[in-house]
């Protein structure tokens, strides 16, 4: 329903949200902190982020550019460049193992096999000089003992799954022979090769036009339902979020400021930032002559060690405490947590 309001076709099966069996936790991230040591000073990119992903669940991570969405996910897979990057603290429990403490050799058995990732720009994330057959079978060659023939067969099946016509004949083609949407499908096929239990999609639809976006959203949702795979979907498009997510993390300046089930978040946003974001969205059911509300000011510099609530300088509801003490993410309702000292509905302290 909310997806329709924000101009995205909903891809949910009816009744998807009702009466779900309790699921086990797949990934649990606690107090993740990532910094970058740059010539200008320390960039505090991720400041104590905690969240979890259940099996088969879709978690959306939203926030504006540079708020730490991608960096937190890359940190979990130890893909940030070290140095200048540094994972300064926290744990990322995958099963009983902490991903942040794994050696590079152990990580290689996780990446692509257990946790796969797709990236924003399908134009640059495929290697221009290798055939897509080579690139899809790469993951199979690394993680399985399939021989070349079997791997190619599997690659053709994967291409077929992601909806590329005449898959078997396209394995020898190069990325430039595919359109943007098709390349993103190839990326998805690559990610699916080893049947990962978690797919991290880093703004996979940002570089695509709207009709292709809808197709990719639909495709990922379909595959998730078929493969029982959990998905973390990083985006700044709240319309897409409404279309696919079960739960949403809202990030701001390296903090998670609010986390909630998707309906709960759209109906009852509790953090002033979330509220402002949703207020800034164009809606199909709103009068067209009304101007969209924008959030005044700019996000804080990440070069300053965070002090107090990061949103305080731009917040309409700011109180004295906001500037002194950083609010913790605390539960306020069923599966709904917010990091704010103010109850924006009663206008009083929480």
């Amino acid at each position, binding site marked *: 329903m909310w997806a329709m309001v924000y101009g995205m076709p909903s891809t949910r099966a009816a009744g998807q949200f009702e009466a779900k069996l309790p699921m086990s936790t797949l990934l649990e991230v606690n107090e993740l902190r990532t910094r970058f040591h740059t010539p200008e000073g320390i960039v505090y990119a991720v400041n104590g982020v905690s969240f979890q992903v259940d099996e088969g669940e879709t978690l959306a991570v939203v926030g504006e550019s540079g708020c730490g969405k991608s960096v937190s996910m890359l940190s979990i897979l130890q*893909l940030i460049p070290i140095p200048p990057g540094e994972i300064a603290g926290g744990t990322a429990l995958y099963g009983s193992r902490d991903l942040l403490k794994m050696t590079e050799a152990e990580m*290689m058995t996780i*990446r692509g096999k257990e946790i796969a*990732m797709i990236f924003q720009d399908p134009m*640059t*994330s495929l290697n221009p000089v*290798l055939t897509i057959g080579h690139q899809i079978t*790469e993951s199979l060659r690394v993680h399985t003992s399939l021989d070349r023939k079997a791997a190619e067969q599997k690659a053709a099946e994967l291409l077929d799954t992601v909806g590329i016509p005449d898959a078997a004949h396209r394995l020898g083609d190069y990325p430039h022979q595919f359109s943007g949407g098709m390349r993103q499908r190839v990326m998805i096929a690559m990610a699916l090769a080893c049947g990962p239990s978690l797919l991290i999609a880093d703004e996979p639809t940002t570089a695509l036009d709207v009709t292709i976006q809808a197709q990719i959203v639909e495709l990922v949702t379909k595959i998730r339902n078929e493969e029982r795979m959990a998905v973390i979907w990083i985006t700044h498009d709240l319309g897409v979020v409404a279309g696919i997510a079960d739960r949403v993390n809202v990030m701001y300046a390296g903090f998670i400021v609010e986390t909630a089930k998707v309906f709960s978040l759209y109906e009852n946003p509790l953090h002033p930032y979330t509220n402002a974001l949703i207020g800034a969205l164009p809606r199909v059911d709103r009068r067209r002559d009304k101007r969209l509300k924008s959030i005044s000011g700019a996000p804080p510099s990440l070069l300053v060690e965070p002090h107090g609530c990061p949103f305080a300088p731009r917040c309409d509801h700011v109180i004295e405490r906001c500037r002194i003490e950083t609010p913790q993410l605390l539960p306020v309702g069923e599966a709904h947590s917010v990091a704010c000292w103010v109850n924006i509905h009663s206008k009083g302290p929480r």
Partner: protein
Amino acid sequence: MDNILEAQKKIATLAADELETPPLSLKQLTWRRFKRHKMAVAGLVVLALLILYAFGGALFVSEQYANYNDTRLSLGAPSATHLFGTDSIGRDILARTIYGGQISLLIGLFAVTIETVFGILVGALAGYYGGWIDSLLMRFTEAMLNIPEIFLLIVMAKFFGGKIPELTILGRVYSGSLVVIIVIIGLTSWMYLARIVRAEFLSLKENEFVLAARATGTSDKGIIFQHILPNCVAPIVVTATLGVANAILSEAYISFLGLGVQPPTATWGNMLDGANQYIESAPWLWFFPGLLILLTVLSINYVGDGLRDALDPRGRAI
């Protein structure tokens, strides 16, 4: 009018894959651009003829004949029996340029192979890993570059010369100095290539496809050799091509100084050794091998230039 209608009909009935010309592969594109470089095509033709001369000529004259000396015939001017004349101990210069050509060209090829392997390894490791590995390898590269190449070649040739016994490959005997020359030319010429490869790696490793490959679980080795290296083939091919010309020249230098490949194995370079005493009295001694070296180096350089233009993705049109 009818014609236009007919043409329209034709267009309308074209099948989907006839509408578009099939995309040209990189090889086709490169060849198409290479062909427009007239001097490069000429260079390629001359180079092919020279290879034919050195390797095809061997079918008509035997190596024994090339090494056969008869002092009675020494310093004979070009004549019907000895088209290019004879040298100071009466060997046939035509036959020697044929066998010497083989050796000179092979020295070029093998020395460049060594150069390329070294250059790629050093450049790739330095560029990909950065940090102290980069500093260490690049300081070493710069140190090597700071020593004059010719000096390095002479010292190494003197040091290693004569330490390797004669080799017999495919029924032919080669002077051990041949191996020494190939190795030292290779080991003194990889530095420029290493710098080029490092620069390519520095920029290519920032590409998103490298991150994507890492996220797939690909090892560093796989990323370096399967993902990044194929992306810098163009500058490597160009440098290697020009490297062949340089290797042939280097061989000529040190052989001219008498430190290169030892007779009786002929090379274009060691045929010049001693010819300086007869610059005026017997110009055919230096003219023919000199001309062959000149033609080879010149045509390889033109081919390299053509390849550089053809392989440069920023080159103007297709």
